[in-house]
């Protein structure tokens, strides 16, 4: 199988596969048709499946997300694209009060098999309203699943899992991933939502991340290896449900934990993960206090140097690990 597939190509392929396999699946969002999606993910699909399966919506996130929820309740398989994850604010009622709640408040009688794809994250110089990482908001809402792929293989494996899931799934794609390349497995794989994967084994420190940050963590691990520090890297893949058991297992081996997330530090999902590790028996396996690498508590600035200064980077991860190992509390990043 090809080993130089871009994340974008992997997404397009899995969308095509989904639309071809299920007549009840449809893609809708702003500019997903002839334009091919703001990030080019749906390029060619409207030509192939027609405008009744790949629907250009008016600018109305609440309206078309609500429509997707209704269609999902009726048994269809909508795939919603919210052009930038920041625009999700327009459809918060639909996601939080409707999609996440219908099943529960109807006593299990309804199911909302909706997949909402959205490009998130900073690093593109697009400033405060086009760069946010809002995924932690949805981790806080029972009834929603939140997944974040890191590689082309993850994108396909997680997307198949999301489509097979009877729950609403938020599918976060980091904008900086679209042009990254990777290999695909020989046989199509469907991931299990809520199952983290160890992507690098090591004995000195556990690095946990998801999405693009996972790739940064792997990069950091390579640098650390050059300093004789052997980092284990766990790719969470799914933030809700969150596989904290897998993280605890790793911490029992390494005794040290560094969580990397791109959302702002305060109220981020990293705080939840650290709590889960420290409130359980894995606490006693820790040799050092855990650390978090996250965005500063600020909107994302436009200036590229300012932007880079507040975002996690492989260098900042290396620095955090070094400080954890040096046991120097108060200087953690």
């Amino acid at each position, binding site marked *: 199988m090809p080993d130089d597939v871009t994340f974008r190509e992997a997404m397009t392929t899995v969308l095509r596969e989904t639309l071809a396999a299920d007549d009840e699946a449809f893609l809708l969002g702003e500019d997903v048709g002839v334009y091919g999606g703001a990030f080019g993910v749906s390029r060619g699909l409207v030509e192939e499946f027609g405008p009744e399966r790949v629907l250009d919506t008016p600018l109305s996130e609440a*309206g078309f*997300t609500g429509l997707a929820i209704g269609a999902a309740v009726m048994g269809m398989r909508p795939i919603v694209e919210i052009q930038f994850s920041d625009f999700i604010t327009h459809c918060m009622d639909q996601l939080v009060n409707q999609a996440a709640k219908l099943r529960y408040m109807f006593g299990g009688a309804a199911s909302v098999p909706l997949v909402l794809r959205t490009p998130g994250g900073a690093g593109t110089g697009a400033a405060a309203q086009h760069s946010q990482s809002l995924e932690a908001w949805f981790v806080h809402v029972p009834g929603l699943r939140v997944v974040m792929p890191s590689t082309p293989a993850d994108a396909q494996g997680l997307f198949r899992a999301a489509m097979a899931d*009877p729950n609403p799934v938020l599918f976060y794609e980091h904008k900086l991933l679209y042009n990254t390349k990777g290999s695909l497995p020989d046989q199509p794989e469907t991931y299990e939502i809520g199952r983290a994967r160890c992507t690098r084994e090591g004995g000195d420190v556990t690095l946990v991340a998801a999405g693009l940050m996972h790739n940064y963590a792997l990069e950091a691990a390579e640098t650390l290896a050059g300093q004789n520090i052997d980092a284990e890297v766990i790719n969470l893949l799914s933030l809700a449900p969150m596989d904290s058991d897998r993280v605890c297992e790793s911490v029992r081996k390494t005794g040290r934990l560094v969580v990397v997330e791109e959302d702002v530090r305060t109220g981020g999902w990293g705080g939840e993960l650290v709590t889960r590790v420290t409130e359980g028996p894995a606490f006693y396996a820790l040799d050092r206090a855990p650390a978090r690498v996250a965005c500063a508590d600020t909107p994302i600035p436009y200036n590229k140097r300012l932007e880079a200064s507040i975002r996690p980077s492989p260098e900042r991860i290396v620095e955090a690990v070094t400080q954890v190992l040096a046991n120097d509390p108060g200087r953690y990043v």
Partner: protein
Amino acid sequence: MATRNKTSASTAASTLSDLSAERQLALLEQMQLIRAFDEKVDKLYAKGAMHGTAHFCVGQEACAVGTLCHRHDGDVITGTHRGHGHAIAFGLDPYRMAAELLGKATGYCGGKGGSMHIADVQAGMLGANGIVGGSMGIACGAAFAFKQRAQDHVAVCFFGDGAVQEGIFNETLNLASVWQLPVLFVCENNHYAMSLSAEKATAGGSIANRAASYGMPAEAVDGMDLEAVYTAGARLMNGCRGAGPALIETITYRYLGHSKSDANRYRTREEIAEWRANDPIERYIRTLTERGLLDDERSQALVEAAADQVEQAFGRAERDPEPELSSALEDVYA
């Protein structure tokens, strides 16, 4: 998306008098059942025998009954927080509704929904909704499914005059119209969004006109007159079938407060009395009497039968079991 030509609505407006005597009486029974249900719930709250909140549609019965009597098998509805009438007019069982209001395991939602979330998704009742305007997109989604599957069903979307000021009203009317989705939007303009009068909230005055500006057939009708709602319902709901959206603005009134905690400080007793004098049930009784289909005795018997059915529903529901505590953690993830 390819647009479908709208099928022309039947030119012969169907009227209630075209229906069989039995069917005409059944509509009265339904309105009385709705009223008896809400009046019973109001009493239970006043006694402290029920918790949470509830919103009553006493006075608005003709809106749901007059539109939903045109429904065909396979049609669906979405309701509002003031939704007991929608559910009953759609055919839901007052006993299971009562059980839900009492939080019982036998309720439509197993006691996890309550008054504002009654649903019977299997039957096509896609839920009352606690968020104003919250179900408008859902109704469009059901209509979208009908269109994609080439089914001639209609999604009936109830909402109040308050929802008209929410962004989702604009978004869904526009979407339904540009995509020609078979949704019948039924606005129950009961004149108040909690305490704010529609007069102070609705620029331009007419809700039906707003809908017309989206290019869909729209009519304002006297919501206190079952006959008028029925006639508009026949025309507009048939127009939706296999075609695009339409809107009915039913001009109606809620006799009771917004919810059980409402002291009604924003309107006068005289105003309420004036509307009560135009009561949709009384008015329809007069029509049926004039048609020789009803006399005082029969009329009284129907009122008593409705009250009795509601008493029995609540009596049975009260004896039903509470949900298992473990069910609180069920149905979060399928």
